[in-house]
């Protein structure tokens, strides 16, 4: 294993990548040796994925150079990266569920018979079998991918990478969906690849499990390179400090009010099989309650259960002191709960309809007579009023929601719930994809809502946001609430601990 250790296979120097209005990568350097597992660490939004997209040819950097096996290269497309032997396994697999394992491994490079028009399934299956044997994977190459477990599907992705003789393998959160024993066999395969001299970039949040596998780690923060360290010689606390390290800016506006004692929402022993386990918490009037945790920790699932979008298996929910059963979204809204989804474009707005219609969408029943005829004038006045109050920047109310910026779209959704006079608002990633100026406005809006006695739940993957806004923070991991912190006591370090560590 050690004999590869000195040869650097990849050097990325001073990589800079700008997107409109965002500096995604600022002078980042990264190098990878043959036969090492190099962990890439950082919070969500630190720039890890962007850096890997540069390496796999998806994004072309504005500045900086990449040398591969000692030679300067330009990676201008995913194909050019693949041809060099750079393979990436995304968190979301790129597999065709209805095709077999062998067909998936050799997709786009199918074995041909003597006649170029016909497929040679037999030798293709043999080649696939050889790869599967190498990975010690006991499945038939003829199995359909949809029949495989997540761990097996991941192995198929690895087999695909092996089949192109990958020299660099990028794994994005490979263990996110695996069980303990599956992780063990993944690590076995990883070690085997190491011994063959493959350089592995390993993106993960699970610092404790990286100890078993990582040789070095590079930490990124806010698109900048923070440092590369020897994994064994560094403590987890040191790594966390490198990852979060920043002082919270003053972008979080101060709030005038304190939450009252009155409990508006009380959740007891909420369960949804395999997704949520014994969720207990309450929300007070005028409070901002934060839900922190890594992606897939179950935060969105809590929100969807409260909103009636997913059914629950057991649990009690009380609203304003009265026990309620929330069986569907309609009921949740009538009870005074509003949900602002993570995916605004797909689930939050009807992009092809006007600002006016989107603002009023939940309230038309209140703005119509008993024959269902809409009072257009009242609608116009109300949504115009909300547009002014929330400073929604739009040329007019007839503008299609899809033509507005992310920040203004989010304001429309907030306007929709204000219009409905909703008491409890659940924000899922309230500022994702929104630029800094508009973020501030959204924070101010949320504060104003609490001053008016509304109660807010904020789900966010951005720790500074959670720390800057919330009165109280619940941390989730694996469908459970693993920690509760008052905002005075909360730090990024102890949130990360609850979110990542076992037990």
């Amino acid at each position, binding site marked *: 294993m050690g004999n590869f250790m000195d040869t650097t296979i990849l050097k990325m120097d001073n990589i800079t990548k700008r997107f409109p209005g965002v500096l995604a990568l600022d002078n980042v350097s990264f190098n990878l040796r043959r036969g090492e597992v190099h962990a890439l660490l950082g919070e969500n939004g630190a720039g890890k994925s962007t850096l890997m997209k540069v390496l796999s040819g998806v994004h072309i950097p504005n500045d900086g150079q990449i040398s591969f096996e000692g030679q300067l290269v330009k990676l201008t497309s995913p194909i050019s990266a693949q041809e060099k032997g750079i393979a990436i396994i995304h968190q979301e697999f790129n597999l065709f569920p209805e095709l077999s394992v062998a067909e998936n491994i050799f997709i786009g490079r199918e074995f041909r018979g003597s006649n170029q028009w016909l497929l040679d399934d037999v030798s293709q299956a043999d080649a696939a079998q050889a790869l599967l044997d190498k990975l010690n994977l006991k499945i038939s190459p003829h199995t359909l991918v949809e029949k495989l477990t997540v761990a097996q599907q991941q192995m198929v992705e690895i087999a695909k990478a092996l089949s192109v003789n990958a020299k660099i393998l990028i794994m994005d959160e490979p263990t996110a969906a695996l069980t303990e024993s599956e992780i063990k066999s993944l690590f076995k395969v990883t070690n085997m690849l190491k011994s063959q001299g493959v350089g592995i970039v390993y993106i993960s949040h699970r610092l404790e499990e990286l100890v078993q596998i990582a040789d070095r780690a590079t930490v990124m923060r806010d698109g900048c390179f923070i440092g590369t360290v020897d994994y064994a010689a560094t403590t987890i606390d040191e790594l966390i400090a490198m990852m979060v390290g920043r002082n919270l800016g003053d972008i979080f506006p101060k709030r005038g009010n304190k939450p009252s004692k009155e409990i508006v929402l009380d959740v007891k022993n909420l369960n949804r099989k395999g997704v949520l386990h014994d969720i207990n918490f309450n929300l007070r009037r005028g409070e901002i309650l934060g839900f922190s945790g890594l992606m897939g920790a179950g935060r969105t699932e809590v929100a969807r259960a409260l909103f009636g979008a997913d059914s629950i298996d057991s649990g009690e929910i009380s609203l304003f002191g009265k026990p309620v059963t929330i069986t569907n979204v*309609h009921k949740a809204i009538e009870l005074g709960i509003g949900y602002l*989804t993570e995916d605004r474009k797909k689930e939050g707005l009807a992009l092809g*309809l006007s600002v006016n*219609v989107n603002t009023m969408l939940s309230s038309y029943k209140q703005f119509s007579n008993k024959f269902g005829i809409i009072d257009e004038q009242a609608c116009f006045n109300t949504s115009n009023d909300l547009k002014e109050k929330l400073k929604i920047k739009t040329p007019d109310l007839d503008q299609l929601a899809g033509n507005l910026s992310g920040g203004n779209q989010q304001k429309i959704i907030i306007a929709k719930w204000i219009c409905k006079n909703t008491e409890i608002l659940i924000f899922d990633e309230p500022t994702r994809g929104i630029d800094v100026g508009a973020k501030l406005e959204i924070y101010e809006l949320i504060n104003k809502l609490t001053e008016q006695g509304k109660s807010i739940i904020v789900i966010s993957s951005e720790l500074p946001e959670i720390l800057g806004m919330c009165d109280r923070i619940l941390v989730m991991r694996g469908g459970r609430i693993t920690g509760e912190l008052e905002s005075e006591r909360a730090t990024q370090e102890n949130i990360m601990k609850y979110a990542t560590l076992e037990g």
Partner: protein
Amino acid sequence: MLSNTKKLTVKKDFFLNKELLMKLAPLISLVLLMIFFSIGTPYFLNLSNLLTVALQTAVIGIMAIGVTYVIITAGIDLSLGSVMAFSGVAVGLAASIGLPLWLCVLAGALAGFLCGCLSGFLVTRAAIPPFIATLGLMMSVRGINLVLTDGRALYFQDYPTFRVIAQGRLFDLIPYPVIYFAVIALISAYILKRTVIGRYIYAVGSSEDAAHLSGIKVNQVKMFVYSFCGLLTGVAGVILTSRLNSGQPTVGVGYELEAIAAVIIGGTSLMGGIGTIGGTIIGALIMGILKNGLNLMGVSQFWQMVAMGIVVVAAVYLDTLRKKMK
């Protein structure tokens, strides 16, 4: 140099106009088509011929209005042709057991309504894609028509007044079906534009997820559009039956596609969320005038079919161009 700049601005103005032009493309095409036929044949532009066109358009037009609702929710209904024949069969069966005329008419409309409810049920409760659900209905209902009538037409000798429904004329001038068409169009446009359910129809078509998470009962909206479309198809069926003065189990084959074509020509998007009743009426009139005009000019039935196909594709192509220009 100077003339160059001038040319450039003129060109820009023309471009801006072009966008507006494309938006009004269906209406402009209709007018151009009328001008073309007015010049092309001396028999086209007179009141009695235009009223004939309106009469011929009414049946397809009423169904097209119904299916506009469905298409705006991003659904489709392929069963219209069979269902309208079913409605005629229902009128005939009601007549054959001697029910009073108004009940016969009601039976026809109700037959269409029930088929629509069934489509709606299949699409919402059974979660079958609308294309498949209504394709199945199209085939089965056609079969049921033949089973119920033994494949023979049902006549209305005992109901001499029945034919008045479609063959009568107001002030001895305007055919009744044209009046039904106009009234139904006005009511439907009003529902779509001014009522809560109308607004929900657009919302469901524009984003089903967003509509659901806004508390709109998406299934109720879908149920409404399919049953409404069925009801209008039933009404169209009664009118056609009265015009033919018989319930024909095999009538209306391919009418669903003509109705859908009219909706598409009128600028409604098959992807949902976009469309108007006004557009659909223009679309139906374009098809009606094209048929009528080509007939008057002595173009064969076969070439007429070719022309219709070209119009549908051209209409959608224009729409794609308009979107690209944005």
